[in-house]
Each structure stands twice: as C-alpha cells, then as structure tokens.
C-alpha cells in the first residue's frame, strides 16, 4: 500500500472499513510511515473533536457545501468511482482525497474544517446568550424606567457593566487596586498573552514547514486576531445584551477564519 492509497482510503477507514484485510494493510502502512501516521492522527483528532460539537453549533449545510466545492476546485478531493462493495447499495460514495502531486503536500487540508469551525464557533458565541446575566441586566427596564426592547444595545459604560457582571478571577483581582479607567483598560487588553491553542500551534507548525519566511508574519497576525477576539469577548461578557458587540465578536472570528483560509490557499 502506498501513501496515495492511504489518502484515498482514509475516509472509508475512519467510517469503519468494510474489508478487514484492507484495514490491516492500511494500519501496517501507517505504522511504518511517519507522514501517513501524522495525517491519520490529525484527521482522527479533528473527527473526534467535531463529533463533540452540539448540533446547535454546526454550521449550515451551505458552509460544508462551499468548503467541499472549494476543495474540489482546488483539486484536493474528487468524487470517486463507486467501489464494488458499494455497488447496489444506497450508500453514496464520499469525496476522496486526491493523491499528492510532487509539488502539492496534503497534510494542510485540515485547515479548511478548522476555518469553518472558527466561523461556527463565532456564530455560536454570538447567538448564545448567557440567560442569567441578561435577566439581571434587563431587570431595571421592567421596573418602569425604560421600555427598551431586550435586543436594544445597552447604553451602559464599560465600567458600570464591568461592575455588574462577574468576571474571571484574574480580572476581579485586578479591579481591587485599579481605577475605573484602569479596569476598562485591563479588561480590554489582558496583560498576559495566553498560550496558543493546539489548532494555532499546528497551524503555525504547518506554516513553518511550508513557508518558513511567512511564519513570523502569520504568527504576528494570529496573535493580533486572537487578541481582538479576547478583547471583544471580554466586552461581550460585560455587555451580554449588546448585539453590536456580538457582531464584532463574530467579525473577529471571521477574520481568524480568513487568516486560516489564506494560509490554506498559500501553502498548497
């Protein structure tokens, strides 16, 4: 079995290969090939993570169709011929990874679902309202001073909002000794840069391999979009009823997805 055979068979194997001899041959090759081993572990990780997503966080079918269309247009996947074991069944064959060409490497295709996942995560964060906090914020309105609807942006200063919504422990500690202005500043821009996520590390690792000269630029931009997401998330946490802030959060996630997409386009 060759690396190309592994790539071609991977979707079926992950779904449970119908032919056990074929699966054994597959596993034997994967054990002896570092590249294929990396690919299979990447795909298994993504698959298992994806299954944990609730249905409400799933992007619309249009998103998947678009990704599939783009991957097809890029020549990364193609519609397979029907294999004998599927003949006569209703099981539609899944698109298969196109075998590698000498100048195209394959192990970066996981960036596409990650980019889609980022958009999905953004959508989820934007649409998911923390009910108790909203209820607490709406309470004064129902007492007779305002008739503003629940979705109206709240004209609340960040400092007031910060006082009304529980913050993560580090922020609470910072507030004890800070002025209101400082509180806003510290909440908006955390002093400590969080460690990059596993996806981000993998993203940068792939960029380092394929386009070493671009690594610093992508890392810098990734830090920037992550900082924007954190900053906006902190604001949304303090102002959960502010729909404009939620839209900015969605925009920030989309910018991160754009970065992944550009890298995917670039490092093929």
């Amino acid at each position: 079995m060759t690396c190309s055979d592994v790539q071609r068979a991977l979707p079926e194997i992950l779904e449970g290969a119908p032919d056990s001899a074929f699966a054994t041959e597959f596993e034997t090759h994967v054990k002896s090939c570092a590249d294929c081993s990396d690919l299979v572990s990447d795909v298994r990780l993504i698959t298992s993570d994806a299954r944990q997503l609730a249905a409400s966080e799933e992007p619309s079918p249009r998103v998947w169709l678009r990704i599939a269309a783009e991957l097809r247009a890029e020549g990364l996947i193609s519609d397979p011929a029907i294999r004998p074991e599927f003949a006569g069944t209703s099981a539609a064959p899944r698109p298969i990874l196109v075998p590698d060409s000498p100048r195209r490497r394959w192990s970066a295709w996981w960036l596409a679902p990650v980019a889609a996942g980022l958009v999905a995560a953004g959508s989820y964060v934007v649409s998911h309202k923390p009910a108790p906090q909203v209820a607490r914020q709406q309470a004064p309105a129902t007492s007779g001073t305002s008739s503003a609807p629940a979705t109206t942006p709240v004209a609340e200063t960040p400092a007031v909002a910060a006082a009304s919504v529980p913050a993560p422990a580090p922020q609470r500690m910072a507030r004890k000794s800070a002025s209101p202005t400082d509180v806003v500043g510290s909440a908006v821009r955390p002093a400590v840069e969080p460690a990059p996520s596993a996806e981000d590390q993998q993203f940068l690792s792939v960029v380092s391999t394929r386009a070493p000269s671009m690594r610093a630029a992508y890392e810098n931009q990734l830090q920037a979009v992550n900082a924007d997401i954190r900053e906006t998330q902190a604001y949304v946490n303090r102002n959960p009823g502010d729909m404009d802030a939620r839209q900015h959060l969605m925009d920030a996630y989309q910018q991160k997805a754009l970065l992944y997409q550009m890298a995917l386009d670039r490092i093929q």
Partner: protein
Amino acid sequence: MASLQQARFDYTMVETLAATLVLATCLSSAVVAETKKEYRYTVGPNANISVDTQYGAISVKPGSDNEVVVSATLKSDDVEVDQQQNGNRIGIASHLLRGTDQPTGQVDYELLVPPDATINLRSSSGPLSVEHLRGDLTLEGADAVVNVRNVENGHVHVWTMRGPVTLTDVRNGHIEINSISGDVHLKSVTGTLVQATSSRGKIFYDGDFGSAGDYKFTTHSGDIEALVPADVSAGFRAHSLLGRVQHDFPLQPKHSRFSEEVGRSFVGTSGQAASEVVLRSFSGKIRLKQR
C-alpha cells in the same frame, strides 16, 4: 622605500581587481539567471484568467478583445511557470522547486487581457495591480500591496493579511475587501455593495457614495474616515463601542431602531438618502467629514 610603496600599490590593485571580478561574476550570473517568457492565448468573450505565484508582482492591463498575453520574468532557475488553457479558462502558476524561497522564487507577471475578462490573482508578496477592466476580479495576497484603478461593472473581491488596498475610480461594482491589518483606501468608488473590513488597518473613503448602494465599513481597532461632498445623498449610521465618533455634517435626524449615544454613535441622513452607509468599529475612531 619606493619599492615598498610600489609593492603596496600593486597589492591594492590586485585586491581591487579581484573584488571587481567577483562582483562582475555575481552580477552576470544574476542577469543570466533571470529569464523572460511570453505566452499567448486566443480566447472568446468573458475569458477566465488565473495567476498564482508565491512571490512576485502581477500587473493586469487591457489588451485586445480575443487574446491574452502573459509576460513572465523569472528571477532564477529555481522556479518554473506552469500554464494551461482549457477553452476560455487560462491558468498560470509559479512552481517553486524544492527549497526555493524569496527572492529566487520570484516571478513577475504582466498580463494584457480582454477588458471583459474575469481575473483571479494570488501572490503573497505582490504587488497586485489591475486597471481599466470591466470583468470580475478576485485578488488575494498576504503582504501584497493591491491597486485597482478604473474598473467598472464587475465584482471586486480583495483579501490581504497585511497588504494595503487601494481602489480608485471603481464604478458600479460589487466590492468586498477584507484585510487583517492592511489599510483600505477607496477613492471615487461606488456600487450596489461596497464592503470593507479591516481588523487593525484604517479605512478611508473619499467619494460621494453613489446612488442606491449599500456601504459597510468595519474595523476592530482601525480608524474609519469618510470624506464626502456637501451634496451627498446617503443615510448614515456610525457606531464605535469604545472609540470616538464625530461628523461635521448637517445630518437630518432619522428614525432608527438603534439608539444614539453621544460621542459613540450618530444616525442621520443627507439629501435624498439614496445610499445607505454603515460605519462600525469596536475601538477605532470614526469621522465623517465634508469635503
């Protein structure tokens, strides 16, 4: 003493000659390594042309109605040009040989295309420039400086990471620009949809917002500035969550479901409000100025 001086003189001469020789060798090898290639394709109306290069400039200008001329300048032998024509679709791509990086992997392209052609360009380093066309344009470049001039009636989609984007005299277009930290400059740009997003870059608009168009400019921390004539016909809505918002325009009040917050937002119309303009920022400043 004189012989010692003569010896020193001779040594300096030899040194200079050697250095000159090395320099000349380097220069000549660089010149030899750079090659130019030209490709010509016959096409019909609405041809679709794609150019993809890791490093290098791509410039597109109008040529004859039924021919595409591609001039490629390869900076070294470590890069090749792959080209393919399938009917009305032409694909050009730089192909880096193993271990090649900038600048040896650079290929600069100059294209002459039918004015109605659809163009797709991609280069990490750029610059990318397109002028005097009326087909759809898609331009993508991480660090690429993007310039689009005198384009009309087409979709213009631009993606950059850090590269600044400038559109000048783009009429009746459907325009979407997205950059992470590049500035976006729009001068005399109108269309049914003009949308620009930059997380950290600035967005600057100088024009009249046309008529019957939707204009949406969004930043995270970048400033947004719009410079418009006194007789502009548009409805405006501007809001920055943490930044200042200001205008020096006699806007008419407008009924809106969005509440106005002094210094952070404004809503109003000018003239017949033929176009709708939405300016949004998380922490950047927003200014609407009269020209």
